[in-house]
């Protein structure tokens, strides 16, 4: 596969991009900017004190999208990137981030993204982040994303975080604070194989009355991989929070799931559920009675959980 094909393939995998995106975008490739477009309402500028960008989305920006994919196709690149998002009041925007590493070499590649969101009042933000790695080299592919977000009153953040293959090591840290009436829906999908490891540490603080949040984490652990989940929901007011973690464990994998709910207000209503289990024989049998092979049945069950 040529370099432009690899690039195209990675962009499709991490950002569902098959051509240049509509709306604003910033493409970072091998630690350099390789494409940027600002719009009237979405303004991207380079940081001057460290690697990364500032993104300003003006108040009232509606139905607009921003794509900020990161590609690493050269072996041995290790970077720490800081992206700060300033999203005004009354916005409705979709942000597609994501990082793809294609490492054919023997040196490790690593992208550590630090994303900070300041979201104004009554805004709606959909944030999709996909992480993907590939390549035949022995170099490790590492991603350690950190995200912090503060949601202003009445705002909604829908966060989809997907890592479904090829990343050897990840430590993910997410901290979200929701003010009065704000809402957070966090969907996490993870698959690990081989000797890959993931630690996902998520904290959602419901800081104002009427705030609500759902953390829904689903994962599949194969091979000798390990996964550790620490989803925490903190209720400081009259609020509602729900944490749900479901993992399918296979082969010699190890999964730890440690959900925590913490109420600091008598009016906080918080719930957590966590389950780890292998694919049940009856599930495979049922799909086989519908005509699938055992392998096809397993694939359906795994892809269903992770979709």
């Amino acid at each position, binding site marked *: 596969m040529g370099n432009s094909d690899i690039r195209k393939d990675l962009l499709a995998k991490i950002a569902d991009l098959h051509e240049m995106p509509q709306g604003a975008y910033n493409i970072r490739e091998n630690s350099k900017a390789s494409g940027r477009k600002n719009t009237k309402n979405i303004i991207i500028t380079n940081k001057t004190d460290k690697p990364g960008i500032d993104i300003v989305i003006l108040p009232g920006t509606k139905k607009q999208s921003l794509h900020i994919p990161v590609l690493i196709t050269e072996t041995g690149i290790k970077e720490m990137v800081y992206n700060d998002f300033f999203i005004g009041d009354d916005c409705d925007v979709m942000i597609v981030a994501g990082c793809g590493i294609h490492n054919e070499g023997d040196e490790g590649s690593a992208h550590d993204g630090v994303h900070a969101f300041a979201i104004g009042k009554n805004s709606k933000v959909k944030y999709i982040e996909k992480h993907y790695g590939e390549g035949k080299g022995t170099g490790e592919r590492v991603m350690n994303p950190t995200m912090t977000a503060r949601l202003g009153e009445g705002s909604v953040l829908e966060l989809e975080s997907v890592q479904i293959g090829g990343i050897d090591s990840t430590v993910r840290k997410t901290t979200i604070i929701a003010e009065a009436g704000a809402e957070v829906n966090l969907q996490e999908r993870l698959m690990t194989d081989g000797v890959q490891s993931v630690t996902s540490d998520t904290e959602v603080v419901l800081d104002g009355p009427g705030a609500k949040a759902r953390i829904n984490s*689903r994962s599949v652990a194969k091979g000798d991989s390990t996964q550790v989940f620490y989803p925490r929901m903190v209720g400081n007011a009259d609020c509602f929070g729900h944490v749900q973690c*479901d993992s399918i464990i296979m082969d010699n994998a190890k999964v730890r799931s440690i959900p925590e709910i913490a109420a600091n207000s008598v009016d906080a209503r918080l719930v957590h559920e966590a389950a780890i289990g292998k694919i*049940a024989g*009856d*599930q495979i*049998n*049922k*799909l*086989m*009675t*519908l*005509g*699938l*092979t*055992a392998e096809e049945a397993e694939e*359906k*069950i795994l892809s*269903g*959980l*992770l*979709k």
Partner: protein
Amino acid sequence: MLRLENISYHVPSEGGKREAILDDVSLTIPDGKYIVITGPNGGGKTTLAKVIMGLVESDAGKIYLDETDITGYTVTERANAGISYGFQQPPRFKGLTVKDLLNIAAGRKLKTAEACDYLTKVGLCAADYLTREVDTSLSGGEVKRIEIATILAKNAPVMIFDEPEAGIDLWSFNRLTGTFREIHESSGVTLIIISHQERIISQADEVLLIADGKLAGRGTPDEILPTIDGFSRRSCQKIEAQM
């Protein structure tokens, strides 16, 4: 035509002995018939159905579908040869929606109207269910009806239903018995229903009585229904004697 020849299935029991769950069962089920298998609990009905589907491997005997020996077929091969089986206690699938399961069953992406039609036939209000995951948020009765809907969507020449009435409310049950009657009257499908329900039994072309792992009787509903009480009594006496 489905033909079973000398099917036996044993499990280990106390003292190194082997207990017969199915004991030399032979029977022939012609195409297009509505057959009910009934009999006391623990008599071998579900095991017999699972042997036909390939979910349980018999330790003796042969199974033929349209004169093809399918004894060595896997579950998948039997499914693709034209046998389907609705589980008595269907599994749940976190992540798979009702529509997903119906699509898998049909072997293609169903149109919404088609999928809704299958759900309506089992007494479910379709629009509420298609996008729901088949997980623990559904009641036992709902999962059971979705299970039956998958068999309808698969539309195999041989449909086996294992106690379809279990966990289903009266109103849905009435709809379900009507659906079985419609399938029987409007298609050449062979219906094999394991049931204790008189309403289902009385609709059958033929009733097979399975007790103690044997085919203990077969006949029309009018012939078999009057004998069921006697079998139940003898079965209870046998269980009491073993206690």
